[in-house]
């Protein structure tokens, strides 16, 4: 009988090591007086949560959504709008700084948006799916842009962070640990889902839809369910993002943001537990490093991404592992 430690795969060890680093290093840097890196890490971890959720549908479900940032925007506006009304009046029904209320709104709105747009988008496949998810996300973008009361194109500064019991989001360390804890829970949840009966259907349907249908599964409903789960998680990430940056704007939902998330997943390694986290980390850190060197950082960054896609199939995790990531 193997002990759990002996049974851990190489990928398992890498995952544990990376998560340990993420849990310890940023707070340590903060403690040494370097707040900047904690803030950078907070953004990294929040984006990692969104990337992990995208990986559920993109990596495991084969749904190349180019509109995942829409959920981040919805979650963020679900946090920002109630606070705005609490301070400036109007819309009494939703005016609130209560975190639970805002989370409920973020999750509910994301779920509804995912359900409606997913139900339509999942009727299509391949390039059409990419285009239609992008179109829905752009709809959200233009909607937010047209909301003059909430700053329109310029966005809106949020006057006050969400109020929650036991946790003060104005404290950068507490904010970080909320994001980090969410990442751990999300990773665990996705890990459970993809290995469950539901996950088996989802994963096999990715490559062999006709086969799975022939066995008696309505694969459409399985995909739609996964799409809603991923949307809800990304919506929650959006609520965190609004709290973290105290600012919301339509650009959070832009198609380039969706593209960023997609890159993170592909860069890190699709259909792996750790891949999206590595991808988000690499994305945020390289972006930071390059943009401090040159304003044209997009160019070398783009070339790097092309390099990874061409030469490191299986992404960063695949490179670390020496082969395609685990199943």
């Amino acid at each position, binding site marked *: 009988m193997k002990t759990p430690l002996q049974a851990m795969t190489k990928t398992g060890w890498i995952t544990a090591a990376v998560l340990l680093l993420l849990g310890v290093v940023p707070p340590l840097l903060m403690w040494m007086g370097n707040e900047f890196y904690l803030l950078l890490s907070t953004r990294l971890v929040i984006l990692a949560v969104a990337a992990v959720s995208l990986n559920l549908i993109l990596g495991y479900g084969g749904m190349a959504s180019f509109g995942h940032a829409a959920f981040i925007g919805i979650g963020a506006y679900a946090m920002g709008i109630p606070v705005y009304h609490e301070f400036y009046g109007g819309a009494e029904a939703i005016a609130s700084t209560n975190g639970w209320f805002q989370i409920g709104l973020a999750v509910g709105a994301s779920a509804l948006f995912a359900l409606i747009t997913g139900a339509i988008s999942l009727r299509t496949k391949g390039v059409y799916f990419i285009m239609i998810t992008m179109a829905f996300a752009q709809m959200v973008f233009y909607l937010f842009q047209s909301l003059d009361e909430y700053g329109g194109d310029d966005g809106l500064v949020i006057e006050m962070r969400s109020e929650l019991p036991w946790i003060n989001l104005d404290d950068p360390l507490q904010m970080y640990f909320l994001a980090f804890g969410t990442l751990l829970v999300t990773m665990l949840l996705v890990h459970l889902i993809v290995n469950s009966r539901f996950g088996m*259907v989802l994963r096999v349907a990715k490559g062999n839809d006709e086969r799975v249908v022939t066995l008696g599964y309505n694969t459409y409903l399985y995909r739609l369910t996964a799409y809603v789960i991923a949307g809800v998680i990304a919506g929650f990430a959006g609520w965190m993002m609004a709290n973290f940056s105290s600012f919301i704007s339509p650009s959070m939902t832009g198609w380039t943001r969706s593209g960023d998330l997609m890159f993170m997943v592909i860069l890190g390694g699709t259909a792996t537990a750790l891949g999206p986290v590595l991808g988000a980390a690499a994305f945020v850190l390289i972006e930071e490093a390059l943009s401090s060197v040159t304003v044209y950082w997009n160019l070398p960054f783009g070339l790097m991404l092309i390099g990874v896609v061409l030469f490191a199939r299986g992404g960063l995790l695949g490179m670390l592992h020496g082969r395609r990531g685990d199943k």
Partner: protein
Amino acid sequence: MSSLLQVRDLRKSFGGVAATDGVTLDIHKGELHAIIGPNGAGKTTLIAQLSGALRPDSGVILYNGANITRRPPHRRARLGITRSFQITSLVMEMSVLDNVALAVQARDGHSFRFIRAARKIAHLRERARETLREVGLETRADAPTAELSHGEHRQLEIAVALATGAEMMLLDEPMAGLGGTDSARMIDFLKRLKGTRTILLIEHDMDAVFALADRISVLVYGRIIATGSPDEIRGNADVRHAYLGEE
């Protein structure tokens, strides 16, 4: 004998080409019914309409007396019709047992279960193993599917169909690409399977068809030109002219 599957005047055209041109067919409960015909006769198109992957332009398909012409494929599978594929469509990265377990899972209530690991659910694994035993692949249960030989892949393909618990199996060229020994093993296996399920067999291998089939229908240019016992088909002048005569 009662008919399990009844097909009435089924038609399907692609552009101006009638791939299925008024097919009427009765598959009796428990029989092994083979459909033969030259390349391009519309055999695969017919199977796709029976499984639900393709929607016919007109005509009726009855299963157990119920009209299933417009039912989607997953609902037909739930009713007890499943198919195997001509081009192996197994999940190569997963184990042999995983492939069968997914089929077992399909008839074990709904699969909107998100937490427990599917590979740790004993009764699914056990029933999948039983099915593998039935087809003689139990020693390969834990091997990655990609490592199996082509012959084993064909067997596994049928094991997956069996594991759904289907009463009616549509087998699309199970002998495709098999060499002499493998082919003989498959015929043996189908002989054992025969009688336990209703089987519609589409096959090019004439030795297999005449060895296995209770009845044979001959499909030419989307039409059934003859249906009968192997002896009747051998003796049928039209069939000899249209099909067998060419050999």
